[in-house]
């Protein structure tokens, strides 16, 4: 399974079509992947397991989210003012 993940990540070109967000408004897509990455990271770190599987979500949110949004959200998480539940 880890090898599949590696293979998938190596073949990564850009965020693929996500059927949960088929229409024009991709805001939720970006938000969802950002949240998924950080929750995945938190969950796997809590278990003490390697968090390589979370890397997919990171690639997707990096592709989709404007850098300024990512920066802002990272700063908010540092300060503890991030509006989402991680």
């Amino acid at each position: 399974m880890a090898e599949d993940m590696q293979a998938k990540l190596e073949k990564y070109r850009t965020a693929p079509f996500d059927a949960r967000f088929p229409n024009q408004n991709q805001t939720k897509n970006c938000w969802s992947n950002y949240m998924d990455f950080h929750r995945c990271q938190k969950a796997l770190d809590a278990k003490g397991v390697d968090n390589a599987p979370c890397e997919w979500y990171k690639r997707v949110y990096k592709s989709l989210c404007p850098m300024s949004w990512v920066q802002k959200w990272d700063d908010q998480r540092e300060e503890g003012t991030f509006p989402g539940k991680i």
Partner: protein
Amino acid sequence: HALMIVFLISTLVLYIIVAMVSTKLTNKYILDSQEIEIIWTVLPAIILILIALPSLRILYLMDEINNPLLTIKAVGHQWYWSYEYTDYEDLGFDAYMIPTQNLVPGQFRLLEADHRMVIPVESPIRVLVSADDVLHSWAVPALGIKMDAVPGRLNQTAFIASRPGVFY
């Protein structure tokens, strides 16, 4: 309050409709060839609905983007665009319009930019348009695209440039 008024008015209207319809009196001056009048009102309505439903479905299907090769973010600012290519690493740059007095002969007024958005030819590209401050709109008429840039929202559009060149 508003809902009360809505209920009041709709009750009134419904009552009037029922009163008009369920009367025994007949106004013979406005009644003539009822059957065909009904047919040629209802039939076109049905035909139009039969056209509209698949049309709306296709409209939304057209929006579904299949397998882009590259994602570019175009973020609008006052008054320049910034482009981000972040599929592999964090690459971003600003593109300002070249002011008219700095144009070189052969360049297009109000269309040229100092850094152009570069795309691979014959590849499906996804562009995510957003804005930093106020509403903007990102358009390339030669590629048939226009998409509003709304702060806090990510609007997706896709295209394929089938020929190499500069598109405005």
